[in-house]
């Protein structure tokens, strides 16, 4: 594996006056690596992934993405975020824009690409996620699975150095989960660096290099995929796996 794309070092975070949501979390994602983050709800996994592109501030520790420290005031956060793709649970496409415009907005406004070049790139990516025919549609005219595939294409259009997935399939109807997972698997196999918060253990088994298990704001286990599923070391991860894998 190459040099780290994401370095999370001793990060602590709390919301308002509540207790800590993240407690001394350290995690590294190397270039080309696919890391799945799982754990029970409230374990801090979604919060952690939001901290990686500074959508959420942290109170302690540091996060370095692509060699740039998010806490450094000289870092141009919008520029950095443009190179960190993020896919949300509820897709968050911009409803008033056609699919094509959703893909072109940040390309032209943030990266400064000419419109024609942005459209070519957008159409190629829509092709890749199987939605070439939907470029002129509005998000409200698409199914949930289609919207999420568009959202993935929108993030890829920025040529990200890493893709973050925040429970990208948990708001979908069951029959639409696989079409989104297929796109994610294809992406993983193409060598994209990915940090994926998900409960889809099948996805983890298939493409993850490592699985990170979080519990109560801490990383309880960080193991290579095979080792994680065959012999989880922490008791909490054992319980978690026995519960979600028996069905």
């Amino acid at each position, binding site marked *: 594996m190459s040099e780290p794309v994401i370095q999370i070092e001793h990060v602590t975070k709390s919301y308002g006056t509540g207790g800590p949501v993240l407690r001394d979390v350290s995690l590294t994602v190397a270039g080309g690596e696919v890391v799945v983050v799982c754990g029970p709800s409230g374990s801090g996994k979604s919060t952690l992934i939001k901290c990686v592109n500074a*959508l959420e501030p942290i109170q302690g520790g540091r996060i370095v993405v692509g060699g740039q420290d998010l806490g450094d005031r000289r870092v141009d956060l*919008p520029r950095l*975020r443009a190179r960190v*793709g*993020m896919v949300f649970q*509820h897709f968050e496409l*911009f409803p008033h824009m056609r699919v094509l415009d959703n893909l072109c907005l940040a390309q032209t406004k*943030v990266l400064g690409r000419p419109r024609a070049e942005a459209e070519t790139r957008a159409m190629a990516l829509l092709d890749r996620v199987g939605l070439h025919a939907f470029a002129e*549609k509005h998000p409200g*005219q698409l199914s949930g699975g289609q919207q999420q595939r568009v959202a993935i294409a929108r993030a890829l259009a920025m040529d990200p150095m890493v893709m973050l997935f925040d429970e990208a399939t948990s708001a979908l109807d069951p029959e639409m989960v696989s079409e989104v997972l297929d796109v994610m698997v294809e992406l993983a196999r193409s060598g994209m660096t990915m940090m994926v918060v998900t409960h889809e253990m099948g996805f983890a088994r298939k493409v993850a290099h490592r699985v990170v298990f979080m519990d109560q704001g801490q990383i309880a286990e960080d193991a290579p995929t095979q080792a994680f599923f065959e012999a989880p070391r922490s008791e909490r991860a054992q319980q978690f796996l026995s519960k979600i894998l028996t069905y």
Partner: protein
Amino acid sequence: MPTRPTTRTRPATTSNGVGYHWNWGIFWEMSPEGTGTYLDMIVQGLRMTLITAALAWVIAFIVGSAIGVLRTLPGRMAPLAASAWIELFRNMPLLVQLFLWYFVFPEILPAAWGIWLKQLPAAAFLTAVIGIGFFMSARVAVQVASGIEALPQGQRAAATALGLTPAQTYRYVLLPMAYRIVLPPLTSELLNTVKNTSVALTIGLAELTARARAVQEFSFQVFEAFTAATLAYLVINLLATMAARWLEARVRVPGYGRA
């Protein structure tokens, strides 16, 4: 202070117990002002109402949008400042605000500025435009802010994650949807702006209601004068409503928000 508004002049004939003399032809008679017919007086008033309302709405819309955006920014200072503006202009009657701008504001300025202000030829007009504009801006701000707050939190996060700056996020992502959501209540505020221009007769603006009253005072045809004014307000506001409906249909997002 302005000359005290004359108390309502009842047509002398009715107080005598004799029936009211309807005379719709009055509008084609020359007015004693010597500048045209009575109809011309109503048309002048209508024109003044339209210009005043249009400019006041431009101020209300621009200032209100800015204040509405401030109210939804992260941090504490910007929302606090926005709330202060909204409460200041929303909680005082419009009549009081116009009096403050017209009579009090020039007095608290350095003397030379105050005199310059008072001698402006269009002082009543400018006061009405700015006064009504600021008054309505507080109401527009509340609508715009609630439109932005009605959007899913993830929209801002998604725009930010794509690398858009806060200004770009508002310009391209949040405001286009927020305006669509609050278009119906904003239309009401536009109609209110038109109607509120009538308050400016108290500072001497020759708008529609003031001119209708002048017609009545010269001709004693109170019902005809105010029927004309009423119809004029009705037509303006119906046209504005139709324009808003047309705009709503035009900017409707395919597949969005269908129940």
